[in-house]
C-alpha cells in the first residue's frame, strides 16, 4: 500500500454487494443495499441523491471511516473489508484526503497548523504554505478559523486535504455551507487540484448542477445506485450555477 503511482489499468475502487445496516431487528436501517460499483482512477466522480439515499455512507466506507456490513470493497487491488483498524488508519494516512461540509477545522489551531496536522504524519507531503498558496490563502496562514470566513475555512480544509498529495480526495458536500459565489471558487480550487495532482476526486452533493464539472455522475436512491452517467461535456466551475 505504499505505492503512489496511479495504476491506470485498475479502477480506484470496486465494490461488490456492498451493504450497510445500522441498528438491528425492527429498528434496523438499510443505508446501503448491495451496491456494485467501479470508480476509475483519476476521474472526478460526483455522487448525487436525496438525504438518506446512502451516498455519504458509501463515501465513509470507501474512505475507511466506517465499516460495512456485507460485501467487498477494493481499493485498487487491496481489499478494504477485513482490514484491521490499524491498516485502515494507515490507508487513510497514506492515500486519502477528506473535505467536509462543515470544514471541521481545529478551532485552536491556525490555518497553517491545521494543515501541518496532516503533513506531519503523511509520507510525502507538500509544504503547508504551498498547499495554502494553492487555495489562495497565502496571506492568511496565521489566522485562526474563527478569524476566517466560511469560504476561507473550506479552502483551508481543502489545503489540508491536498497537502498530503492523496491518491483519492473525498469531498462530502464541500459547498453545502457556502453561498454560490464562494462555493464556485471552492469548486475551482478542487478542479485545479485534481488537474495538478491527478488524484481521483469523489464528491457528494445535493446540487445537481455541480455534476456538470464531473467525469462521471452516480445517482443514488434508497441505498442503491439508480444510474451512472458519463459526462461527455465537462463544464468549468465558473460555468455552473446553483
Amino acid at each position, binding site marked *: 500500500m505504499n505505492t503512489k503511482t496511479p495504476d491506470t489499468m485498475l479502477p480506484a475502487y470496486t465494490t461488490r454487494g456492498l451493504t450497510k445496516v445500522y441498528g438491528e431487528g425492527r429498528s434496523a436501517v438499510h443505508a446501503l443495499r448491495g451496491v456494485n460499483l467501479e470508480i476509475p482512477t483519476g476521474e472526478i466522480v460526483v455522487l448525487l441523491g436525496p438525504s438518506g439515499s446512502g451516498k455519504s455512507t458509501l463515501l465513509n466506507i470507501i474512505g475507511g*471511516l*466506517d465499516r460495512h456490513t456485507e460485501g467487498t470493497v477494493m481499493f485498487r487491488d487491496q481489499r478494504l473489508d477485513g482490514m484491521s483498524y490499524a491498516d485502515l488508519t494507515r490507508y*487513510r494516512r497514506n492515500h486519502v484526503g*477528506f473535505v467536509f461540509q462543515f470544514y471541521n477545522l481545529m478551532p*485552536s*489551531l491556525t490555518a497553517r497548523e491545521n494543515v*501541518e*496536522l496532516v503533513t506531519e504524519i503523511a509520507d510525502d507531503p507538500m509544504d503547508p504554505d504551498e498547499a495554502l498558496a494553492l487555495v489562495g490563502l497565502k496571506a492568511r496562514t496565521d489566522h485562526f478559523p474563527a478569524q476566517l470566513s466560511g469560504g476561507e475555512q473550506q479552502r483551508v480544509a481543502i489545503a489540508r486535504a491536498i497537502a498530503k498529495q492523496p491518491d483519492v480526495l473525498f469531498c462530502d458536500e464541500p459547498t453545502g455551507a457556502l453561498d454560490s459565489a464562494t462555493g464556485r471558487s471552492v469548486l475551482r480550487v478542487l478542479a485545479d487540484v485534481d488537474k495538478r495532482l491527478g488524484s481521483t476526486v469523489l464528491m457528494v452533493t445535493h446540487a445537481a448542477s455541480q455534476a456538470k464539472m464531473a467525469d462521471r455522475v452516480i445517482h443514488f436512491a434508497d441505498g442503491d445506485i439508480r444510474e451512472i452517467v458519463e459526462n461527455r461535456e465537462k463544464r468549468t466551475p465558473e460555468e455552473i450555477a446553483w
Partner: protein
Amino acid sequence: MSPLDHKLLRDLWRIKGQAGAIGAVIAVGVMMLVMMTGLTASLSETRDAYYERYRLAGVFAPVARAPEQLAERLTEIQGVSSVETRVQGRALIDLPGQVLPVQAQAVSLPDRGRPALNDVYLTDGRMPATGRPDEILLLQSFAAAHDLRPGDTLRATMDGARRSFDIVGLAQSPEFLYTTAPGELVPDDARFGVIWMVRSGLAAAYDMDAAFNEALLGLTRGASEASVLDAVDRLLEAYGGSGTYGLADQFSNRFVSEEILGLEAAAVGVPPIFLAVAAFLLYIVVGRMVQSEREEIGLMKAFGYTNAEVGTHYFKLILAIAAGGALAGCLGGIAAGRALIGVYTAYFKFPFLVFQLDPASFATGVTVSILSASAGGLFVLRRVFALTPAVAMRAPAPPNFSRTSRIGQSLNRFLDQPSRMVLRRLTRQPGRMAGSVIGIACGMALSVAMLTIYAGFDRTIDLTFSVVDRSDVTVSLTHPVADKTLFELMRMPGVERVEPVRNVSVVFRNGLKGHRGALIGLPQGRELNRALDASMTPIDLPERGVVLSDVLAGMLGVSPGDTLTVDVREGRQPLLQVPVAATAQTLLGSPAYMDLDALNHILREPGRISGAYLMIDDAEAEAIYTALQDMPTVAGVSLKSQAREAFVTLMNQGAGAIRYVMGAIAFVITFGIVYNAARIALAERARDLASLRVIGFSKGEAAFLLLGELAVVTAVALPVGALLGYYLSFGIAAGFSTDLYQIPATFDPVSYGQATLVVLVAALMSGSLVKRDLDRTDLIEGLKTRG
C-alpha cells in the same frame, strides 16, 4: 512543536479556570503529603539525633534511697551499657510578685565533668562550678516564661528548707522537652521548672550522701528492655524502687512521640482523600472535553492518526494538569514544610534542627497524583478509542428524553417550560447528576468533618474544664496524709467546698499489656471532680472494682467484668487483682478511677488522701494561696484557669494547629468542586442556552436553566454530604486524638449549619462567575457547540 502540541497548549489555556481548580486540588493533596511527611521525618530525625547526642537514657529507675555502691551491680546487668546515678527531688520556686510558688524538679549533675547519660544542652551562661552548691542551671523554657537569665538569683524551697541560688546558666534537656507539674497532664512552661545543680549540693539538701534516688541506664544494641527492667526492679526492690520504666513511658518522650505519630497518621490518611477528589474531577472535565471534541477526534482519526496518537494527545492534557498540580504541590509543600518546621522545632523545644525533606515523598506525591489522575483519564481514553471516525463526526443523536416525560407528568401542570427542561435533564442523565452531586457532597463532607473537629476541640476543653472538673484549685500533697487535713483546708476563709482525692502511682497489667499511670480515688457524693460516662452523667464508683477510661481499657484490652493486675508503686507496693467495674468516656488523659474508701481499703491505708479539690471564693484567693503555701504538707497548688489556658495553648499549637490548615484546604476544595460542577454544566448546556437566547429568552431566563440545575444539584448534595461528613468526621477525629487527649466526633448542629453555608456561598460564587461567562457567550458560537 507539533500542531497537536499547539492544540494542547491552547486547550489548556481555554480551560485554565477548571484546569487551575483541579490542579489546585491535586496541589493541596501533594502539598499536605510532602509537608507532613517532611515534617514528621524532620521531627523524628531531630528527636533521635537530639536523644543520641545528649545521651538520653533508655531506662529510668526511681528509688527511695539506694547506696551508691549499687551502681556497680546495675552495670553488671546484661544489656546495660552505661549507668548514671543521680539525686532528684521536688522543689518549690518562689517568684517575686507571685503568691503561688511554682513547682519544680531539682536534678543533680556530677560534681565533675558531664553526666554519662541525660546530658544537658547549655543555651546560655556556664555549667555550675565544682564545689558551688549555690550555683544552678535553670530550664531554658521556664526561664524564658519568667524572664530569668544568668546572673539573676532564685529562691527555692527544697525539702522544707528555703535557699537562695545564683542562676549561672540556662539549659535544655532531651528528658524535659515537655514538662508538667506532678499530677497534671498538660505541659506548661511557666508552671513547672527544672533546676540542675551539683550532686554534692543536692545530696545535702535531700539527705542523699553516698546514695541516689534515681538511676539512669543506657542499653546496648539489641538488649531486651523487658529483662533489664525486671533485673533492675529486683535489684532495687529492697531500697524502695518505685517501678523502673523504659523510654517509651518517659513522660516527655511519650508526649513528643505521640505528637509525631499524630502527624504521621494525618500524613498517611488525609492526602489520598484530596487526590481521589481530584481524580474524580479530572475524569469529569476531560470526559466532557472528549465529548465536545468528538468531531476533532473523528477528524484526526480520518486523517490517519492512530488511537494511540489521539489517546496520547488527551492523556498529555491530563498529565499536564496532574504534573502541574503535583509540581506546585511539591513546591508548596517545601515552602509550608520550611515555614512550619521552625514553628514545630520551637514547639518541641529542640535545640537544633535536622531539616529533612523526604525525597521519597516527592516521588510518592507526583506518582500518586499522576496515577490517580490517569485512573480518571483511562475511562475517558476508553471512550476516545471507541469512537470510529464516521460516528465521531456525525452530530450525536439528541439524547432521548421520552422516558422522562412521564416522570413529573403530574408536575408539568405546575411547571413552566424552563423548569421542565431542568427537571428532565436531571432525571434523564442520573449518572451525570450523581457525579455532580457526589462531587459537591465531597466538598460538603470535608467541610462538615473539619468543622466538627473544630467543635470537638472546643467540646474537649469545655467538658474537661466545666463538666468533669468543676473545682477552682487543685492541691497536691507531698505524701499521703490523714484525711483530717481536709478540715484544715475547709477552715480557710473563702474555701467553699473541699473534696479529697488520692492518686496512687501504679502499673496496670493485663497479660503482656501494661500501662504506667495512676489510680485516682474519689469520694462518694463528689461535686468537683467527677468520672463521667459517654452520656455525660456522673458514674457511680462501686464499692469495689475500678472504672477505667475507654482509652485505657482499650490499651489494656480489658472490658467490664475482667480482672486487672494493679502493681502499686508506692508505700508497701502490693500487687493487687482488681475487677474492672465499668468504663467511662474521658477526654483528657487515660485515668482510672476508684472509690476513695475502696482504694484505701485495698491498700490497707484507711483515711488517706494525697490531694484535694477546692471550690473557692475568688475574693479570698490571695489569702487562700498564702495559707496553702504555709502548710508544710502542700507540695503544689494548681489553678484550673491556668490549666485550661495551658490546654487551649497546647491544642492551638503543634498537631492541633494543623486542623486550621486542613480546614482552609477543605474550603478551597469545596469551592473548586462546586465551581467545576457549574462550569461543566455551562459547557454542556451552552447550545441549549444560546438557542433559548436566540428565540427570545432574556439572559436571566436562560441563566435560570443553568443555575436552576446547579441549585437542585446543590440541594440534593447537602444532605448526602452531611451524611458522608458524619462518617468522615470519625476518621479525622481519630487521627487528631492522641493518648493525651481525645477529640470527640459528636453531632454538632452548628457545624452542619456552617458547612451548609460554606457550600451555599461556594455555589453562589460559582453561579455568579458562570453566569458572567454565560452573559458573554457569543450566540452564534454557542449555537455551533454541540450539546
